[in-house]
């Protein structure tokens, strides 16, 4: 049934193609602070890009530069090869959704949604007809006469979404649009936004610091730190082969062990802190590790297998906590040198015999091991 609505809506609303965006060598300084420090980002028409990063990493500043509320110190921003770097925000024709709804409290819902059309000089009747249609797109048809304070947070954010798309912009910018909503509403809205994106073909830049939100929604995710893009790619790539230590620790859960590289060739041999030497496939080395230097070995907790299996390295872990976590058991313990190690093991049948204090053997499949330069 959901599919029917989808098809219907898609056929009545002509698909507006999104615009391509090119951000080149973007730099924004606030006094001594580099809020954005040399960002290059090419976004294809119709793509859904998430900007993900810790607080202060420059996500908002990048978005505001695209929106025209901040002018960069240097660099350019092009939308469909038109240079918009210093064009004022009101002449960019980009849709924008803010974190705190930002509906105009003194206007009705319909007037809120019709506001961009009013600014574009459309006659009242047409404004209202198109605003009604936009409200229907976000499933709020018939709410036009209400006031913003009569709607729930999720409904208000949907109105803000309707207002951002009512004039059929080719780019939709969103700065943590869901972070003020509670978890269930947030998931509903994630689907709603995905649906709109598919329906309208609009290019989306979506700022979030919630990684699961970024991973589920975006075609590609740009991971930011200190104003720089540390990695950009689709969710699977980011999760399965993080390009650097920062991404590896920022996205998902990861176990890290400090090692020393002994030799690099067809296989990489590393010395572990408790004296063993492991031979790893050369593909394990993500960035160029060198013999004789320190490196960090990384393994996701769900890649560990309980018990000594055939293909892989064996580690012995002294368990300290055994936590029931719904779909899996979380086992927390220490490696022989004291480094913490976590394992997520699905199904509990084989685990009932384990207790804190026990030493358990785990198999680490060779394919699950990643190796980075440096120390953790």
């Amino acid at each position, binding site marked *: 049934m959901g599919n029917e609505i989808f098809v219907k809506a898609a056929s009545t609303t002509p698909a507006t193609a999104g615009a391509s965006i090119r951000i080149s060598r973007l730099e924004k300084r606030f006094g001594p602070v580099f809020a954005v420090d040399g960002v290059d980002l090419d976004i294809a028409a119709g793509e859904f890009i998430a900007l993900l990063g810790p607080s202060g990493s420059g996500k908002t500043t990048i978005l505001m530069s695209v929106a025209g509320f901040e002018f960069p110190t240097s660099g350019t921003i092009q939308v469909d090869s038109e240079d918009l770097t210093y064009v004022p925000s*009101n002449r960019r024709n*980009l849709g924008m959704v803010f974190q705190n709804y930002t509906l*105009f409290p003194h206007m009705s819902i319909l007037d809120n949604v019709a506001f961009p059309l009013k600014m*574009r000089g459309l006659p009242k009747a047409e404004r209202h007809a198109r605003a009604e249609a936009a409200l229907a797109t976000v499933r709020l048809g018939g709410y036009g006469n209400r*006031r913003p304070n009569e709607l729930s947070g999720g409904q208000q954010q949907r109105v803000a979404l309707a207002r951002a798309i009512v004039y059929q912009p080719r780019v939709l910018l969103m700065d943590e649009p869901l972070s003020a909503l509670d978890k269930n509403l947030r998931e509903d809205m994630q689907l709603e936004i995905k649906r709109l994106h598919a329906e309208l073909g609009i290019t989306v830049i979506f700022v979030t610091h919630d990684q699961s939100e970024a991973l589920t929604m975006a075609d590609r995710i740009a991971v930011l730190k200190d104003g720089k893009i540390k990695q950009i790619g689709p969710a699977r790539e980011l999760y399965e082969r993080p390009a650097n230590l920062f991404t590896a620790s920022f996205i998902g859960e990861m176990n890290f062990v400090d090692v020393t590289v002994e030799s690099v060739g067809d296989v990489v041999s590393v010395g572990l802190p408790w004296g063993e030497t492991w031979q790893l496939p050369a593909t394990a080395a993500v960035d160029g590790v060198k013999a004789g230097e320190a490196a960090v070995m990384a393994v996701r907790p769900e890649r560990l297998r309980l018990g000594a299996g055939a293909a892989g390295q064996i580690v012995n872990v002294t368990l300290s906590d055994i936590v029931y976590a719904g779909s899996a058991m979380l086992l927390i313990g220490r490696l022989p040198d004291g480094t913490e190690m976590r394992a997520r093991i699905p199904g509990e049948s084989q685990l009932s015999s384990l207790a804190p204090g026990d030493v358990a053997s785990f198999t680490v499949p060779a394919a699950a091991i990643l190796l980075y330069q440096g120390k953790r």
Partner: protein
Amino acid sequence: MKPPTDRGSLVLGAYVYAVLTFIIVPLVIVIPMSFSQSDYLAFPPTGFTLKWYAEYFDSRQWRAATWLSVQVALLTAVCASLIGTAATYAMVRGRSRFVALFQILLIGPIIVPHIALAVGLYLFFQTIGLSGTVPGFVLAHTVLTLPFVVFTMAAALGKVDANLEAAAMSCGATRFQAFRFVTLPLVLPSLASGALFAFIISFDEPVVSFFLSGIRQKTLPRRMFEDIEQNLTPVIPAIATLLIVLSIAILLGGHALRSRSKTQSSAG
């Protein structure tokens, strides 16, 4: 069982009534005196007459002084609200380093004694020929009333989320349109009360007007002082009574406006 008597609230109640009495007593004295038949100010009043009101309305001089004060107060209210709103907007939203200095300059007239300001303005306006003119009064009163507009507007503008204006601009509004369609409607009640403040302050401002009044151009307060010095007839309490009635009417009107806009915005 009786609830325990709270001494603190008893004392507070007594205090409030004392203050109210203190405020109301002059009114209670002034209003009856305006109907007194004796030719000089006397309490208790004797008899009942409306002749002092008639004298006020018949006198060309009183009417001229009133008209001048009304003109000046209206123009002052307009100028102070325009300048005050623009200045406050710049202070609240601006990123300038000089905001603090700017603030002090705007609020200065509250701290500087009016007599000092009056003497300065008197000397200055004499040399440039603004003394005793409507523009002269309006200029002086605008300076005096600006702080009140700035205070009310700073509170109101501070409450309007700057992101609302950003949202309006992302919808295609210019900065001015964002102010006109979003910010202004939200601060309109405060703007109205700021303007009202300016009007009332200008209307019964005595000190600066005393210095700036010419021989023919006298504001109502200045004219009243003259009359007190020379005649001291009950026309003064008659005017005072009219002013009291007018102020109460304005206050009630403003209150009605505000409560109407409140119910409108909460239940649309």
